Each structure stands twice: as C-alpha cells, then as structure tokens.
C-alpha cells in the first residue's frame, strides 16, 4: 500500500474532505471535514440518525459519498473495495456467519484469498488465541454469548491485517458488566495492534473513556471534534455541552453588559456572570456551560436575598443518591434543567430536603463560554 504523507506517524490516517451523503431526499451527512491521525482511537458520537454510522460505512466502502473525498494514508479510496482500502468492519449485529464454526468464520478472509485449509486454520486459531477465544474454535456463533461473539467478530476483522478497524456500536448489545469489560479489551487490542480504530457510539461515557479523539455529531454535521478532555471540559456549543452531559447550560439574553460582567435574563431569573473580556450587545444570546460537579450549594437565609454574581437561587427538586455523590435537581434556577452533583460527604453534613431554598454558586472561571450552534465544523 502507498505510504501516505499526512498527519499521523502510524498507518491508517483518515482524511474526509467535504464528504456529503444523500439518500434520496434526505441528507445524512452534510459536507464533513475530518482528520483522524493514524493509530488513533476515534469515537463518532451522536444520537441515532445523526449520520455517524453513514460516515463509518463510507470509510468502510459500504456506501459511496455523494460528494467529497475519503482518503486513507493520503490515498483516495472512494470506489475501492474494503480489502483494497485496508479497512475492516465490525458490524453492530456482528454478522457472524451462522453456518460456519468460529474458526471458519475467522478463517473466511484467508479462504477467499485462496490460502490452503491447514494454513488458514492455523492462522485463524492463532488469532482466536489473541482475543482469548481459542477454546471456542469449533463452536458455532449461536452457541456463544454476546461478548464471546464480539471477540470472534473482532478476530475475524483483525485477521485481514487492516490499517483501520471500523466498529459500529460494538458494545450496544452487551449488558453493563460486559460492556465495561469489553471496553478495556478494545483499548488493549487497539494498543497491541497499533492501528486506527473508528468507533461509533451513542453513549457519551463510552466515547470519553475510550477515545483519543471524540467527534460529536448532530444532523449530519460535526459539532465538535477534539480530545476527550477538551470535548468534556470545553464543549464548543450548547448542543455538545448538553449531549455530553455533566454540564448545566445557562442560556439567556443579555440585559446589561459592563466590561467583564454580563447580566442574563434566562426566563426564570436574572443571572449576573463574571465574564472577562466579553462585552455583549444588549439583547444578544449568551450561553455558558457549567460543570455540575463544580457548583456548590448553600441554604438561602431568606427568600428575598439579593442575587450575587455567579450564583442562582433555586428550590431543591428531586434528589438521587449515586453512592459517592448526590444528583440534585434544582427548580427555578434557569430556563432549563439545572443539576448539581454534590459529594456525598457534603450532602450528609446537612441533608437537604425537597423544596428547600438554596443558592447555587460557582467560581467565575468554571463558567465556560459557548459558541452558537453548528457554526464551526
């Protein structure tokens, strides 16, 4: 395969340029630009119907883009078969051939390449050992549990010696316990093989836990592509902040603006924010994200306490014990959901009850200014 001259040092660097995919009247993917460095673990994250699977299938060669270029290691691969691309896909349903034993499933690629029976079985068994499924070589897929089937599917894809492995919601069919186990396993295998993984998921924490690069999508567009930590801590748009979770989005119109300080009308109450370097026109939309675990709570001494900057007044709504922390929903804080994740020790010092009047406050540097939706790609 041609050696590419693009970003990553390892093999399997993927570049999408202006990629669009239309199915009849609907547009699934709208002019996407994306660069995935070779050897990276990339998660495409978004709600169902956002176009993430379509992107995966276009990289795999199971769909052709309506417009744009897909290249791997600098080589345009549009129109090429999966094998020529050096990609292998793991299907959501695993698509293990039900009439073949695990060994023959894994050996399928070698068989169609004309490699002799003894040799291909030997190599397939070797691959099965690498995913710790050697003992199941002669079973049929129907006799395996979901997690075991997944390892077989993984071995079957890896035996093609791909430079890119494409995983379509690989963990969605597993129960919680197995999902966490397989998550580690995927990461281990990606490390061991040193190839690019592109993993489609709609589970935020899965993407955060696995990916070097998280790509958050909505309605066929990329809302934010960046390192996991960046996407979590500095979401680019309100959509990303809401979708990734762990954030409260404060959104409102500016009613007063002084250098370093804005006052917002959120629909529930006015909030004064310290926002250095930002001066906004009165009437403009202003959105900030605020991590739920960086908000502190104290009881409000009187219901008519004057609002201080960087805080909101609210009433305690529903509360949920999460073990090491409490999820406390506040009513009347802003126009939308406002949640505080309170450490359990803090909660038990002075347990709150539903209906208690509280003030939720934060340090000014914790408020993260958001861009308006969909502008950047």
């Amino acid at each position, binding site marked *: 395969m041609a050696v590419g001259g693009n970003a990553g040092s390892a093999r399997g660097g993927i570049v999408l340029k202006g990629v669009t995919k239309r199915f009849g009247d609907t547009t699934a993917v709208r002019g996407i630009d994306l660069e995935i460095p070779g050897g990276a673990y990339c998660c495409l994250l978004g709600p169902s119907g956002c176009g993430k699977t379509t992107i995966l299938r276009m990289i795999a060669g199971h769909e052709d883009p309506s417009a744009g270029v897909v290249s791997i290691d600098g080589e345009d691969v549009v129109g090429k*078969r999966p094998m020529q691309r050096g990609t292998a*896909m793991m299907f959501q349903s695993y698509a293990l051939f039900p009439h073949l034993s695990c060994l023959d499933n894994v050996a*399928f*690629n070698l*068989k*169609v390449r004309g490699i002799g029976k003894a040799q291909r079985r030997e190599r397939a068994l070797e691959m099965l050992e690498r995913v710790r499924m050697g003992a*199941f070589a002669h079973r049929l897929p129907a006799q395996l549990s979901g997690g075991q089937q997944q390892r077989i599917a993984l071995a079957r894809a890896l035996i093609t010696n791909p430079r890119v492995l494409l995983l379509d919601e690989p963990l969605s069919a597993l129960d919680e316990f197995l999902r966490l186990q397989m998550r580690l396993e995927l990461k281990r295998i990606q490390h061991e093989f040193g190839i690019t993984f592109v993993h489609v998921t709609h589970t935020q924490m899965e993407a955060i836990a696995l990916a070097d690069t998280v790509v958050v999508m909505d309605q066929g567009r990329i809302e934010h592509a960046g390192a996991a930590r960046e996407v979590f801590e500095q979401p680019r748009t309100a959509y990303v902040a809401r979708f990734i979770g762990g954030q409260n989005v404060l959104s409102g119109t500016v009613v007063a603006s002084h250098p370093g300080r804005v006052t917002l009308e959120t629909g529930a109450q006015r909030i004064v924010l310290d926002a250095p370097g930002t001066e906004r026109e009165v009437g403009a939309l202003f959105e900030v994200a605020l991590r739920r675990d960086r908000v502190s709570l104290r009881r409000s001494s009187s219901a008519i306490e004057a609002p201080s900057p960087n805080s909101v007044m609210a009433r305690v709504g529903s509360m949920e014990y999460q073990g090491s922390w409490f999820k406390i929903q506040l009513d009347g804080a802003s126009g939308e959901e406002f949640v505080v994740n309170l450490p359990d020790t803090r909660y038990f010092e002075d347990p709150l009850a539903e209906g208690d009047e509280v003030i939720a406050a934060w340090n000014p540097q914790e408020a993260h200014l958001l861009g308006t939706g969909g502008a950047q790609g």
Partner: protein
Amino acid sequence: MQARESGRRGLSHYLLAGFFGLFVAFLYGPMSAIFVLSFQGPTGGLTFPMRGVSLRWFHALFSQERTGDFAGSFTRSLLLAALVLSLTVVISVLAGLAFRRRFPGSSFLFYLAVASLIMPGILVGLGIGVTFQFLDIPTAWYSSGLGAQLTWTLPFGLLIMFAVLSRFNRAYEEAGRDLGATNWQVFWLIVVPILAPGIIGVALFGFTLSYDEFARSLLTAGAQNTLPMEIWGMTTNVTSPALFALGTVTTLVSFAAIILSLGSIALIERRRTRRGSVAAGTSPAPGH
C-alpha cells in the same frame, strides 16, 4: 394463565378438538382405506372385505396389463417434477434476491407474477394449449406442460423466498465483501448456505406442486399423459384394486419427497447447533 391451564377445559377446547378430529378423519381415513385395499387378494374387488392379502395389484401396475401406461406416466411425472423443481429453485432464488432492491415497477411486477395463483388453472392450461395450437407447435409435457406448471410453481417459490429473505440480515453479505469475498463467493459461501433450508422448501413445493398438478397439465401435456391424468383416466376404466395400488405408490413418492426435504432441513439445523453443545459444559460465561 396457570389457573386456567390446570382447571377444567372449556367448551372451546372440545369443539376445536372435534374439528381437528374431523380434519384428520377426512385426510387420513380415505388414504388408509386405499392403502389397505391395495393389498387386496387376487380374487378381491374394489371394496371391502379383503379376500386375502397379495402384492398382485402392484405387479399389475408395472405390467401394462390392463391398467394403462402407469410406468411411462410415472417416469414422465418424475422427470417433469425434477425439471420444474430445478427451474423453480433457480428462478425463485434469483428473483427473490432481486426483489430485495426496490426497483421502479417492482410491486407491479410482483403482483403480475403472483396473479396466476388466483387464475383458474384450467383456463391457464386452456390458453396455453390454444396458443400452441395457433402457433402450430405440438403440445408436449416437456414444453407447453412444463411452462404451464411453472406458472403455478414460480409464484409459490417467489412467495416462499420473500418469507425466507425477510429474516435474512444483509449484514452477512456486507461482512463477506468486507472480508474480501467477490460477489460470486458471497453468493456461494454465504447466501446459499444460510438460505439452504428455505431453498429446500422451495424445491419441495416445486416438486409436489408439479407431481400432482392436473388442471394446467390437462390441456398442455400433449399426447403423453402425466401421472395425475393417467390416474384420472384409470378411475373411469380400471375396475380392479390396481387403482388403489397406484394410489399407494404415488402417495409414497410424495411422502418420500416430503421426508427427504424435511429431513435435510432438520439435518442442516442440527449441524448448526450440535457442534458446540458437546463442549457447552466448559462455557465460562455464567448468566449468558
């Protein structure tokens, strides 16, 4: 549910059981009478009582004594059924695969094809016979007869393939291509083996529908009779238990076809589940 199952049975149970009893009696009663009477003694007649037991009437069948051309029509019917079976399988499977893609006019084409299921068979046969006569082509079981029977078996085959393919996950084919298989390899190494039980079902239908087809063949089979027409002829002029022997033999052929197909389907299914159950005890996945 539990209480109702363990409690006394309602009226509906007895009504339904009675209805099923009637069904069984109508289906297997005459068949067993024919079966028993086909072993009638040499001096026996068309009705009970049995006067001894013999295989005489089976002999009579194959000796062209006075029973018409049983051996010839039997062979023709088997050959024709084999032809119909092969064509039905090939065409239905390919058409079924093609219909998975919605092409312009696909539903019109589908209704056009299955309409022959509701057309009276005798009229289809008449039309084909008249057309052949008009074109001055002699009708024969292997030409006009074959065509007439295919108008009957192909729609059935197509409908079965629809049912079979509705449960077929296209990801299998994509996985095959993803793993480097050519379209040809995908078809032979993946599609055909996975669909095998359904394809055998199509073959069984093709065979049995052809083997006892009468209405469409009557006016299209030409000078040489197929078995159902020969039997029809015999009922009017054969007055010996050879007629019953004929019934027994043809029924056995039908049963053999059914047992063969169901047996091979069962074998495939078992092969797909058997292999690992031996080692099932070693499964390290509790709760799955």
